[in-house]
């Protein structure tokens, strides 16, 4: 039982590491229109990509401070919300990362097929 639990924990950690790299790509891809934190989580979940709030909110701020997103507070709704939207620099980086992702996916597919996984 203990071994099974350890294996499950190990899998979860590795799976988390695997997904960590593509979280940025997933977030940037869904910010063509302004989104606030929770709406982006919803939007990603609807498309099959689940992400923790504790991971996404700091990531949005980091992308903004790196100049790939713009943000503004909107006070018109039921409560003030901070909206994020991709900007020109973000679009450029998204295009580059998307290209990298396609190449990587193809390579990985070949590697896994060769090994019959």
């Amino acid at each position: 039982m203990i071994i099974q639990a350890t294996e499950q924990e190990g899998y979860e950690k590795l799976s988390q590491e695997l997904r960590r790299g593509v979280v940025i790509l997933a977030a940037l891809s869904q910010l063509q229109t302004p989104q606030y934190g929770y709406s982006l989580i919803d939007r990603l979940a609807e498309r099959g990509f689940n992400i923790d709030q504790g991971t996404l909110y700091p990531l949005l701020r980091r992308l903004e401070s790196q100049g790939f997103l713009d943000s503004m507070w909107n006070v018109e709704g039921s409560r003030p919300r901070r909206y994020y939207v991709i900007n020109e620099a973000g679009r450029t980086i998204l295009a580059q990362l998307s290209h990298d992702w396609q190449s990587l996916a193809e390579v990985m597919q070949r590697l896994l097929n060769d090994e019959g996984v």
Partner: protein
Amino acid sequence: MDLIERYLGAVSNYLPAKQRNDILAELRSSIYDSLERNDQALDDQAAVVAALQALGEPAKVAAAYGNNRQYLISPALFPQFRSVVLLVFSIMIATQLGLALLGSLGNQRLNIINTIWGVIGNLPATFGLIVAIFWGLQQLEVDTEFEPKKPFDPRKLPAITPASEKVGRGSQLFGIAAQVILLGWLMQFQAEGGFRWFSGQGFFENPVISQYFALVVVASIVNIVVDLVVLWRGVWQTSTRIASLAASGLSIIVLFLLIQGHSAWLVNAGYPNSLIELSKLGTMIRENNMAIGMSAFYYGLTFTAFFVIVDAGYTAYKLYQERSRAQQNEVVATA
């Protein structure tokens, strides 16, 4: 509602002041969104607990907003830090035990527990002092996270240097340890208005140290920082030699002022500078005779000044050699 504010309060404890309010406002708004999305009321405690658990532990959430530099001493500096701590602690323990044994020779009374307690009691403050010095040094060296880093160029690695040009790790560490201990003593002097020894027995107030206190502390800190930078670089270069020479120059000025001050005090008090007083050192220290203390300081400082001058002379000579060699190379290259 109360639970949400308590959660935000806990997160705010770990956030940098500059961004605190903005991050908290965004988190608050997101928590309300999460509850609203699931049709849960703010007074439904189980729902609020679940929403906050989904967000994560306050410290971890706040850390995710940080810049990943949540340490006092960087991994790059840690080996030097560890060496300095070990050396300083060893010297302190050995010196204090030695002094305690010396003090007990006359009166045959040595309280082991008090002695050990006296030694251990000084270690935390010394440790804090070393941490503060390394932290200060690290602040001088850190670069900003988003500053583009230049690619590593192996051609810019320093040339292989002969063993004589490599910094002697042992002597450098010994110098740092001695300066840290001096700083520790100065802090004690500042706190108590004088020096104590033998498990708190005996008290000696030195008016000359009081007069030049700030200057001695500054010179000591400058020397520690320069020694650490030299130790960190690991190789003697023109820049490290110049820095070392400048620090020695400052030490010589301060030592000269202190020696002059002690000499003047001894002359005024009617004690000529002679070794006779030193022969009665043990007895007179126990009697708290100020003249012997001042005399011991006078000779100690003179002895130190002699070594600092010799060391500075050697550094100046090596610097001169280096410059001459560089000029010769330039002449050859031009020809």
